[in-house]
């Protein structure tokens, strides 16, 4: 008897890999929030409407309290105070009194009255010239939405995952992610977003396979679909045939077993078969990364990103907030040598407290130390002071991003020197200024290695930015991003050339961009004697294994 397999149509969709690994499972579609529908109606009883107002205010307060306790372990105490502010707004005597007056005057429904009253506050807030206060209008909108939903008896879309699934959404916020039981998330697929979004970085560090920037294609996905996320190829498979599912299950199993084996050997240093040693360090941007760096056997931290201190703050971060934030992360791996990269963001990351001008070309604009010099007292100084103080307790070295020439390097060295002596005068005990290195990412700095090799203490290649500057292709622009991998040969040529000179001066060179974890480049790195490679912690075990198997 002939068996006819029912072959469903397989669809493969391209996306951007924002994480690693393979995920297989049923789809779970997260619906977008629907717009509110509030229509003015005559009410039969003013009292009934006022009762509805009172009960919706207390129901929403209870909800906010619930959100606050749900976030208690994720947010800092300062960030949690925002929920207290929401509670106070819900208790605002004027909000209630004005809404009641409106109901009485217009004999209308409470949701309409409330919407009218809150819109006045929203209007006033949006008219302010302070961007931070202006942004609070969003908070009032959110509270209004919660109140109206409560009055209308509409349930807010709550994301409840009862079985392990692959989430599909237009976009996913970190708040939404925090509200979901992450154990049930097999993978994430979003229409919007890029590799460097906060959510993408979070998913990668949690080891959740994710594809972002899928575009309109995800609207074709149906409720009962079965999906495979393949981050190795940046591909989503929809309703694959059984054969393909089996292949992927085997691949996933193999990757899991490989990883288990690699972790076992990862705690010791990696030496090639011919006896060359190469440090494999971790790129760290949050406390979870540091825990993984330790767990996965990093030989140190080759890139400690400090952006979280700036991007998560509602005000200019103070010296104390830098100090505490870094301490909380550094103490997860206290004995390691930590390479701390100074302030490195630009106008592509709008900050509520910084009236940063919109730039047409943020990658080439006032970013990183350029921004730090521009707002020295507010941005860079507190960070430098906090790091100098921490250098007494931890083994730190400072990595300077976006150094275009010797003048930039001298400027930052002078600033660090100044803050060092200022702290000494204030009575702080700091033995010496930490080593100061350059993030090699602006082509100008590599063209004459002799000039810089003497002046900095160490060098680290940021291959992602260097590639975008070499190819004149914006790495956040999907339409030209395919140029970046094509810079590989040039990058290796430049790294080799530069390393030769740096080594003559007795300076160490590391690579911390995407290229560092590219196994195809490993033999070149070993040949030219790169001192260390730095990468996301979960890639360390496999790279260490590859080094051990290299000649």
């Amino acid at each position, binding site marked *: 008897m002939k068996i006819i397999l029912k072959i469903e149509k397989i669809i493969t969709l391209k996306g951007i890999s924002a994480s690693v690994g393979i995920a297989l499972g049923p789809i779970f579609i997260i619906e977008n929030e629907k717009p509110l529908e509030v229509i003015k109606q005559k009410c039969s009883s003013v009292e009934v409407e006022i009762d509805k107002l009172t009960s919706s205010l207390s129901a929403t307060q209870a909800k906010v309290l619930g959100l606050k306790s749900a976030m208690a372990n994720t947010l800092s105490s300062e960030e949690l105070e925002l929920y207290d*502010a929401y509670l*106070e*707004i819900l208790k*605002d005597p*004027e909000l209630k009194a004005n809404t009641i007056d409106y109901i009485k005057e217009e004999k209308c429904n409470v949701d309409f009255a409330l919407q009218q009253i809150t819109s006045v506050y929203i209007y006033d*807030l949006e008219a302010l010239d*302070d961007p931070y*206060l202006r942004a609070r209008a969003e908070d009032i909108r959110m509270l209004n939405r919660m109140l109206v939903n409560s009055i209308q008896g509409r349930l807010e879309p709550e994301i409840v995952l009862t079985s392990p699934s692959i989430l599909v959404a237009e976009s996913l916020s970190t708040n939404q992610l925090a509200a979901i039981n992450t154990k049930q998330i097999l993978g994430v697929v979003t229409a919007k977003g890029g590799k460097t979004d906060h959510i993408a970085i979070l998913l990668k560090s949690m080891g959740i396979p994710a594809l972002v920037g899928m575009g309109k294609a995800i609207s074709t996905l149906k409720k009962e679909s079965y999906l495979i996320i393949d981050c190795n190829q940046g591909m989503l498979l929809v309703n694959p045939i059984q054969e393909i599912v089996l292949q992927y299950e085997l691949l996933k199993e193999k990757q899991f077993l490989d990883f288990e084996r690699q972790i076992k050997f990862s705690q010791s240093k990696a030496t090639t078969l011919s006896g060359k040693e190469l440090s494999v360090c971790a790129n760290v941007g949050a406390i979870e990364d540091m825990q993984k760096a330790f767990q996965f056997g990093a030989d140190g931290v080759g890139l400690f990103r400090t952006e979280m201190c700036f991007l998560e703050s509602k*005000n200019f971060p103070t010296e104390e907030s830098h100090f505490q934030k870094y301490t909380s992360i550094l103490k997860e791996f206290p004995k390691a040598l930590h390479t701390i990269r100074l302030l490195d963001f630009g106008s592509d990351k709008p900050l509520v407290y910084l009236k940063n001008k919109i730039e047409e070309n943020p990658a080439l604009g006032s970013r990183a130390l350029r921004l730090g010099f521009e707002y020295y007292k507010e941005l860079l100084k507190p960070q430098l002071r906090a790091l100098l103080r921490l250098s007494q307790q931890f083994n730190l070295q400072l990595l300077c991003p976006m150094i275009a020439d010797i003048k930039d390097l001298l400027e930052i060295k002078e600033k660090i020197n100044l803050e060092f002596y200022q702290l000494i005068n204030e009575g702080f005990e700091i033995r010496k200024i930490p080593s100061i290195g350059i993030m090699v990412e602006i082509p100008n700095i590599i063209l004459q290695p002799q000039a810089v090799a003497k002046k900095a203490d160490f060098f680290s290649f940021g291959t992602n930015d260097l590639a975008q500057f070499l190819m004149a292709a914006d790495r956040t622009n999907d339409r030209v991003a395919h140029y970046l991998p094509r810079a590989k040969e040039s990058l290796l040529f430049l790294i080799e050339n530069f390393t030769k000179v740096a080594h003559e001066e007795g300076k160490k060179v590391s690579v911390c961009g995407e290229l560092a974890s590219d196994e195809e480049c490993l033999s070149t790195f070993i040949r030219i004697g790169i001192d260390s490679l730095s990468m996301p912690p979960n890639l360390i075990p496999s790279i260490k294994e590859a080094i051990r198997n290299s000649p």
Partner: protein
Amino acid sequence: MIEKQIVIKDSVGFHARTASLFAKKAARFESDVAIVFNGKKVNGKSTLSLMTLGVKSQDEIAITVSGKDESLAMESLVTLIENNFKD
């Protein structure tokens, strides 16, 4: 009725957090509390009204308190601002 001028030292001004802390404290007293800023007078017990004033860091506001417990209320509110909204 008593009145006092004071400078807001918080690094942002009257935003959600500081406005709510002020309103919360003001609501503990019998007396009426009002804030005058930029020619606009609002109820000091209303977080929303305080936020919409647009008071920024280093701006000077006037607090007026009138009622039975006005001097204690004024003292508490001024202390709250002077301690930069830390209770």
